[in-house]
């Protein structure tokens, strides 16, 4: 196999759980404000989804609802490396990615409630959040089918002579779909400015990765196509930022794609209806012990960026936002019947 010039996975490849997070973000140009921002975003996502789960239980939210809880560091760290004119795609587990791209809790909760004030005006629901202006391109339900679309948007920005980039998140099980391989080939062949991030949370629904993928290392799927690859600790927002920054810079400056793998974990079931009995309590606990939010909180306190009290204030502010979002969703109108006939050629 041709040696990858890309050092990322040598640098940051490390046994998960063993290695504690390195508080060396300054070296990587991450400001304290960014650290605080990432903390806020992770906490917002966490609290938003905890509340969404409650509202789902009350029957306020319908259909499928896939929670991102546990994986926040992947999207948040990656999101910090982006500009406003960049584009983000993910699958149906999309609340987190949507919130960090600036979809408000109000718009998000209203969408879950199927209201006209939602980010997709109630047409999409949990799996189909969109805010095209803010560069959040969804929100897709067919496993493994969105990477070509994401690649198409990066193709377009390059075609138009812009230097914006696209990040495409997908699950490790989605990475088995054939069209993903076709897409890796084209992205490299045409030098598309895109970063593919496989969020390896080890399970596709109830199936552990070793029962679904016969290979050892997901990232070699990229190497076959001569694509630069990397792997990082997805339970650390700083590690996520560092790895994705390298890839995003390459996409922006050299117009080259990268395939990254994030080691992460979802605490909840696959969707609200999944009891998750295919995993041991211990396994889940092990990951909760390296919870991305808790560990960053410790770091923030140790490094005196913020005090306990200041962190409490953040927590309270977020609580208020979430409560407001539910009230907003409750009080918002359903889509009018005419909406049925809009946005489709009849």
């Amino acid at each position: 196999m041709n040696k990858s010039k890309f050092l990322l996975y040598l640098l940051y490849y490390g046994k998960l759980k063993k290695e504690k997070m390195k508080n060396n973000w300054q070296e990587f140009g991450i400001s304290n404000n960014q650290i605080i921002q990432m903390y806020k975003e992770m906490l917002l996502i966490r609290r938003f989804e905890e509340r969404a789960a409650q509202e789902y239980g009350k029957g306020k939210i319908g259909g499928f609802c896939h929670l991102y809880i546990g994986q926040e560091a992947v999207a948040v760290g990656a999101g910090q490396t982006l500009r406003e004119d960049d584009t983000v795609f993910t699958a149906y587990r999309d609340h987190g990615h949507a919130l960090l791209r600036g979809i408000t809790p109000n718009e998000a909760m209203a969408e879950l409630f199927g209201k006209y004030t939602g980010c997709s005006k109630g047409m999409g629901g949990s799996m189909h959040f969109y805010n095209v202006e803010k560069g959040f391109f969804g929100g897709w339900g067919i496993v493994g089918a969105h990477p070509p679309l994401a690649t198409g948007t990066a193709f377009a920005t390059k075609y138009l002579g812009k230097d914006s980039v696209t990040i495409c998140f997908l699950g490790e099980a989605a990475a088995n779909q054939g069209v993903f391989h076709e897409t890796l080939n084209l992205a490299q062949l045409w030098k598309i400015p895109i970063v593919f991030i496989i969020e390896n949370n080890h399970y596709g629904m109830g199936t552990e990765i070793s029962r679904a993928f016969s290979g050892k290392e997901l990232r070699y799927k990229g190497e076959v196509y001569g694509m630069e690859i990397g792997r990082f600790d997805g339970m650390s927002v700083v590690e996520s930022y560092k790895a994705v920054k390298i890839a995003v810079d390459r996409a922006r400056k050299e117009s080259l794609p990268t395939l990254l793998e994030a080691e992460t974990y979802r605490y909840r079931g696959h969707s609200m209806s999944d009891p998750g009995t295919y995993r041991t309590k211990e396994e889940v606990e092990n990951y909760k012990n390296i919870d991305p939010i808790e560990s960053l909180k410790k770091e923030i306190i140790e490094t005196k960026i913020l005090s306990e009290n200041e962190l409490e204030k953040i927590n309270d502010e977020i609580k208020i936002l979430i409560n407001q979002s539910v009230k907003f969703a409750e009080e918002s109108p359903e889509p009018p019947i005419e909406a049925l006939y809009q946005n489709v050629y009849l």
Partner: protein
Amino acid sequence: MALLQIREALNAAMKEEMERDSTVFIMGEEVAQYNGAYKVTQGLWKQFGDKRVIDTPITEAAFAGIGIGAAMKGLRPIVEMMTWNFAILAFDQIMNHAAKARYMSAGQFKVPMVIRGPNGPAHMLGAQHSQALESMLAHVPGLIVMTPSTPYDAKGMLKSAIRDNNPVMFLESEMMYGQKGEVPEEEYLIPIGVGDIKREGTDVTIICWTKMVSVCLEAAEILSSEGIEVEVIDPRTIRPLDEELIISSVQKTNRCVIVEDSWPFASVGTEIAKRIHQNAFDYLDAPIEIISSIDVPMPYASNLENEILPSVQKVIDAVKRSLYY
């Protein structure tokens, strides 16, 4: 007689056929250790083990194709699609291979397989997860398309599907898996291509299948209380269609309403209307009424979803339009 859910009736059909014939096996996403996303394969992995109940990665095209190849070599695969929306990824395998292998080889191949799973809108799943694909599948010669509406039908139809030597697309409904009904203890088969009169009547013929049958039976009750007796016909097999049953009913009632929860353009309901028009032209006292879903992708919001789908009231109105034409 036992009172079974459709889920349990389908499960029983597979269990019996697997016990009867060792070449029958099940393959699909989460069908084994998870007992099926909708628990239709509950307990089968425990009983038959890894060899015959096989979890697959999320690669619909490949495992559908492997099922087709296995069938070409003498096995009887039951391929579960977690939902039919995902089977679109396997349409090339289904249309270009399963449907054509026997014909292109002048009969050298048989393709005795079943592809089954939930089809059609469920509830608030949005546009990508709420598609009724029977019309696209039934368009393709070489495929058989079946879709049951009761536990009794589900069991007898699935057993026939498993025993047939042609690829059978077996369309179930997520919303109906829990629906209960009487199922005999003793073995029985419901042949492919044979419809069923779900309610006898004289004034108007209603043709409907799967989820729509209960909607139409409910409408029939209400109409009956108003003195209107409709005949409710469930073709059960979409392709090949039990044309005789349909035509003879319409020849009796001279009026027809077709109800489907799929898009209207070139739909199965449209096909049935064509056949009635052509074969009972002089019997029709009113144009055939067709109630399909509204011709748009499915929105998430439930008020819109309800507006789109056929309802008891829509059926009643259509019957009356037909009667008072």
